[in-house]
């Protein structure tokens, strides 16, 4: 009796957590109802517009896929600014996009290699 109560409580709290996570993401799938476990992999968009990343700083949970979409008439890129260059897009022309899935927690600064004044950061943290 006691152990099944604990399990039920855990299940409820993960559902609540999943709901909060998806609710916080501007472009995430918003249908986190009870039978959706395990939750689908989260997707978030970053818009490239008027020579800036929107949002410039993004907090996500591990396993989230980020897609950058270029809405400018000019070409842009998305390049990890760390020496490892964990992710680096091809040149993105108008309307083109680039995706990367972030599995490991950490802070990932990035820039547009055509316009290095355009910078952003992805913060990957469990429970973000």
């Amino acid at each position, binding site marked *: 009796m006691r152990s099944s109560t604990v399990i039920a409580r855990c299940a409820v709290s993960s559902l609540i957590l999943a709901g909060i996570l998806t609710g916080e993401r501007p472009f995430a799938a918003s249908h986190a109802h009870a039978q959706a476990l395990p939750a689908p992999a989260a997707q978030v968009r970053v818009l490239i517009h*008027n020579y800036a990343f929107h949002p410039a700083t993004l907090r996500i949970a591990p396993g989230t896929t980020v897609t950058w979409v270029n809405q*400018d*008439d000019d070409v842009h890129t998305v390049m990890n600014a760390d020496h490892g260059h964990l992710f680096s897009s091809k040149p993105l022309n108008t309307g083109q996009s680039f995706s990367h899935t972030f599995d490991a927690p950490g802070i990932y600064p990035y820039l547009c290699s055509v*316009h290095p*004044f355009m910078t952003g950061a992805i913060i990957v943290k469990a429970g973000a």
Partner: protein
Amino acid sequence: MRQAQHETNAETTPINTRRQALKCMLWAGSGVLWTVAGGVPRSSIIGSAQAADIPTTDFMFAQVSDSHIGFHAPANPDVKQTFRHAVRQVAALKGRASMLIHTGDVSHLGKDDELDTAQRILHDAGMDAHVIPGEHDMLLNHGQGFYRRFSPKDAEPLGAYTFDDHGVHFIALNNVSDFRPGGLGRLGAGQMAWLKADLQGRSASQPIVVLAHMPLWSVYPRWGWGTDESAELLAAFKPFGSVTVLNGHIHQVLQKVEGHVAFHTALSTAFPLPAPGDGPGPIPVKLPSAALAQALGTATVHVIGSDTGLAVVNQPLGA
């Protein structure tokens, strides 16, 4: 250097009059004619009355910039045509001008077909062409396609090289290959050392012309319009009596003199950009295509001095 004086800086709004359109289109489509007299280069816009009046001098060359072959947005749906037009203007100077300089962003995406097209068009000038890289030319394979076509085989690792013409020492730099986040153009330690070695022991009376794509002085750092090593560069050039720096990148004419060093930026042959700080970013300025066709090669330019004497803006005054 916030160019409030630049009369055309409001062109992100719709253009109401032909006169306004003509003024604005002076930002794009034309080349710059350089004459060297007494070791001091002077500029005028090709096709202008001022250029036509220039007396014959020992040495004359042309500059075009930012042709962005491969760009297809509304600001200019036919960048090949406008580049051809500018090169034809240069070709008409054959016999007077002895070479053509392209200060970078030859291509928009650095693709082989874009670089090939640009190379073919440049060939039509019928004179030697020196082409330096812009950041768009470096987008694929670390710029290998650009280097293969335009850089001498014995160039410095980033494609920097020097040559001499009519007693003038030309230094072609690459400040678009080593960007840092939030940063400006950058030469990097290797290229700076290479440059200082080239200047070492050189006669201070020899005129020097420096070519680089991004401005070598701080025009507007918030949009990256400058170069990290500009203070170090100024110090390196200090002993020399005549140093002229020719840049592209910002698609408009700005000039500045600091000591014996004169800085100039050139027009684009493709599309204009807003004046520094005008708007959220360096967004290509859209114009009706009819205005482009009407305005090309019909302009005159007056040079006006600022109150401080530090900055000079070539201010377009219409056809």
